[in-house]
Every structure is written in C-alpha cells, then in structure tokens.
C-alpha cells in the first residue's frame, strides 16, 4: 500500500510549499537557500514516495526530509567555510544591562516577571505563538541555528558541536544567550508591561 501515491507532486507545492518554506527559513534565514531546500525536499520526496508508509501525515513526512536536508546543508557549509576563529562567535561581550555590577537582576527593569496565565491556557492562544515566532525570528542567525537544533530538533549538545564544529563552551554561550533573549522578548511582547514586583 503506497500511502502518498494518490497525491500529485504539483499539489504538494500548493499544500506544503509555504509550510516547508517557513520551516526552512526559520533555520537558515535566507530566502534563496530556503527555496532551494524546499526544492531538494520535494525532489527527495518524489523519489522516495514509494517508501512513504502513510503512517504519518504527508506533511510531517516531508518536514522530516526537510530537516535532514537542512542538517546536510549545515554540515556542507562548515566543510566549505570552516569558522576561521572559533572564538569569534562568542567574543562579542554580552553588552546588555540585565544585571547590575554585582550580577544581580535589576528589579525595576529586567528581573523575570511572574508570567500570569496558566501555562496550558497560554499555549492555546494564537497570539502567544505569533509572539514566539516573531521573537525567534529576531534571534541572530547563529543563535537561531543552535537554538532550533537543540529545542526544536531535539539534538544532543554533543551532536550539535560536532555538526557545526564548535566547542561545547561556545555552544553553551550561544544557547544561553538565545534562551535569555527569547525569554526577554516574549516577556516584553506577550506577557505585557512591567509592573512593580
């Protein structure tokens, strides 16, 4: 039984094209490369359609292919353009003023607020996901790359270090900054205005 065979490849473009494109864009931050990845994915899906079992939805099957293609692309990029200075990425100091000189939160500005709603209820709100997507798109590319590999693709840190050829301490710094920035962005954009603690 070939689950996907009834589907016309041209229809795939209409049905899944935009979805795959956004999924790729979130990770590679380049329209041309993202389009390229969608094309590679569709071609690979076309070749492998006999093997599509129909166990999962057609879309999640294609997203799975896309993720492999993205990881291949990352590996290839690193082979072709190895990072000359491995410290370069994290050399830029964390210039923000989240903490005072003693390393404590600034209670009037940056200390984490009590996020009010029940977490489960928040996840049902469209606006939450819009804010979160917007905040993800604001992350600098390198941070977004490691963050999505870790939190969306659920790769282990060691695997990410090996793939991107970065040290584990560099990865730690990048992911820490990504999480911090994302949390802060979501607090400002979704959870609302800062009030007294």
């Amino acid at each position, binding site marked *: 039984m070939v689950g996907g065979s009834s589907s016309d*490849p*041209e229809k*795939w*473009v*209409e049905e899944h*094209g*935009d*979805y*795959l*494109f*956004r*999924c790729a*864009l*979130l990770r590679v931050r380049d*329209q041309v490369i993202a*389009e390229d990845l*969608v*094309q590679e994915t*569709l*071609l690979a899906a*076309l070749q492998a359609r006999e093997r599509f079992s129909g166990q999962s939805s057609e879309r999640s099957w294609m*997203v799975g292919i896309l993720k492999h293609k993205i990881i291949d692309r990352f590996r290839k990029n690193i082979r072709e353009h190895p990072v000359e200075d491995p410290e370069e990425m994290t050399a830029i100091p964390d210039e923000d003023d*989240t*903490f005072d000189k*003693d*390393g*404590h*939160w600034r*209670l009037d500005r940056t*200390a*984490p*607020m*009590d*996020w009010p709603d029940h*977490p489960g209820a*928040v*996840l049902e709100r469209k606006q939450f*996901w*819009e804010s*979160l*997507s*917007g905040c*993800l798109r604001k992350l600098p590319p390198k941070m977004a790359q490691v963050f999505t590999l*870790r*939190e*969306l693709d*659920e790769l282990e*840190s060691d695997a990410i270090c090996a793939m991107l050829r970065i040290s584990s301490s560099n990865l*730690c710094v990048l*992911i*820490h900054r990504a*999480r*911090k920035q*994302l*949390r802060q962005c*979501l*607090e400002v954009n979704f959870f609302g205005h800062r009030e007294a603690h």
Partner: protein
Amino acid sequence: MQIGPKQDVKQLKLGIGPIVGWLIRITPSCQDMTRLLSEAMDRPLPFGMRMKMRLHFLICKWCERYKNQLLFLRQALRRDPDKVEGEGAASSASLSPEAKDRLKRVVSNS
C-alpha cells in the same frame, strides 16, 4: 513601644538577615545562575553546583522564575513545533508565485 506585626517582621528580618547574606555569598550570582540554568538543560551539572543553585532559589524568586520560564519555553516548543515552524505568525513569509511555478515545473519534470 508598640508591638505589632510590623515589628515581628522586622525581628524576623533581623533574624534571617545573616543567613540571607551568607546565602548570597556562597551561591552563584544571578548572572551566573542564568548561564548555569541554561547549561543544566543540556547536560547534568555536578552535585555541589546543583545544591548551590537550589540554595540560591531560597533567596531569589526571580532566578526560580527564570528557570521555570525556560522550561516552559522548551515544553511549548517541543509539544507544538508546528505552531512556530509552519503556521507561525500571520505575518510569516511564503513562497512567491514565481517560486511556486518553478517548483511545480521541477517536480513534474523529474
């Protein structure tokens, strides 16, 4: 001299003041806590450090919030990756009509 709730609080504060000061000295700063809390999500930290972090939570609700909020973000993203990957924001990018036509040509010609 009045004895009331205010004074109780004052006395209480006097009583725990040195302990709080001690905890501030022996536990990581909030800045270090944010770094460590992130690291703890990716690899197990040594026992001693985990204990110091727990002690820090006794004196700092903000770091505890920070930790819970990072975990909340992780759960949200892992439970519903679709929501940010594809559907995402209404303002999300989409393929141009030209790109779609090109892709259709590519898939139908192979």
